């Protein structure tokens, strides 16, 4: 999981399907760095006090099967750590001429 402070461009995700977000790097000390657009974000690895379970609804059980009419969820994954990023205004100038 990546947690981003502030809204950034993730406010309306639907038109962004398939779109590129950013590059994730790690320093040699395992500090995560995320470069999104004009921002460079420094983050940290946080172990969650209470892990998150990702619940996905199971398909509806047909009438004849046992347990019919019951809704069930499967926990697809348990998230125990996240990368938490805070923005640090650091402009990336896009048209710096390439060094010859």
């Amino acid at each position, binding site marked *: 999981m990546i947690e981003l402070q502030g809204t950034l461009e993730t406010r309306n995700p639907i038109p962004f399907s398939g*779109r590129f977000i950013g*590059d994730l790097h790690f320093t040699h000390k395992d500090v995560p760095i995320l470069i999104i657009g004009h921002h460079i974000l420094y983050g940290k690895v946080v172990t969650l006090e*209470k892990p*998150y379970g990702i619940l996905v609804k199971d398909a509806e059980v047909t009438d004849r099967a046992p347990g019919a009419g019951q809704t069930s969820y499967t926990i697809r994954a348990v998230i125990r750590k996240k990368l938490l990023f805070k923005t640090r205004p650091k402009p*990336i100038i896009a048209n710096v001429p390439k060094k010859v």
Partner: protein
Amino acid sequence: MEIVNKRTLDEIDSVLEFAKLGRDEIKSVTQSIYFSEQLDSEGIKLLELDTAVLTALENGERVIIRGDKEDSAVLCTESETFEVKLGEVSNALLIVPDMTLGSELTDTLLPSIQYQQVNSVMHTFYELRKMKPRLQKLRSLLEENPYAGQAAEGDVDHQGTKYTFNELLNLVQGSEREIKIALEKMQAIVIDGYWRVLDFDFLVQVMSHLLQLCDENSWLDQGIPIQECLSVLQDIFPRTVIEHVLKNFADKITPATGKDDDEKHMQIDIDYYRLNEDKVCRFFAEQILKHARKFNLSQFLSTWEKSVPDGMKTSVSQLEGIALIDRDSNPEVISYMTVDTLPEEISERFNHLFRIREKWSLPEITPYIKDLTTDKMDVTAMLTKSFKNTQYWFSSGNGLGDCFCNLKDFDAIVLI
């Protein structure tokens, strides 16, 4: 994974240059993150997992979310109950299933790219808060059709719904274990696969037959030989009912060995029960109190004394949790009040109690609130918490015996 316009190392390098981040400062693997083509933030839910719940899941236990449409959702493991609440975050939570942490990256000689996808962007999650199960419904369900004997089962008053354990599980917001404990406390019994509570008057009948039999056979002293007792009574009442009554009103005893007096010596290989004086006397008190609800205390005490079986002694301590004694009134009165019908929620419980009576001493109020205690909150903590913000007046009169709260020196609380 279909990604159009895959990012190249050149593109990554130029951004690094602009960002003034040197390749020597970072590990060789870069993860380029994209929104998935099938971005779906509605199809999954995030659930914060308490340790107990996580352990239950890891052990393969059933974890169920229960509640009728009108109830708020409750999550149950096999032994605990949690309230489910929706939490919102202002931050965006991006779910990236295959993301690798820095510590897990194997450093390669040459820079490389891993392509990652964000499957969902979440702004809400569900959190769990441990709570006491909502058990009042259990009692009201079982009281829809109390058991009053086989003969009565067919009659007009006994056509109410009967519930099996699984049916109760679906309707009551609590874990299996907590519900089982509650059923025992309620002295419920399984008859023909259904959980039932015994109709009080029916119970009175069973008890009086049992006591008569004990009297005829001098079993009150010696103990009740269970098989013999069952063989006599099972013509009148179902075996399960008699066993249930013995279990709730008597204690199993092991026969003494090597006694001198052979006459009184119980046979070693027979199971015996001895009626529990406190439980039986309490039962007789309930019989009297249920009829008139409020009594002159001294009249009650003498009637009660006379009603119990010979050889048994009554004591006011046996009335804890079923009767309220008012010693301030003239004459002193006693009224019927059980904890079972009181509100389950703490502030509602206190409101109810203080509407009934203005002043309570600690020993008077304890039986009516101790069912709400948890491992984190005992009676004293509950009182302090509930009265912290209210004006209260402490009386230091001698009142009803030695009841000193260990926080402050008071023995009565008045809500103004």
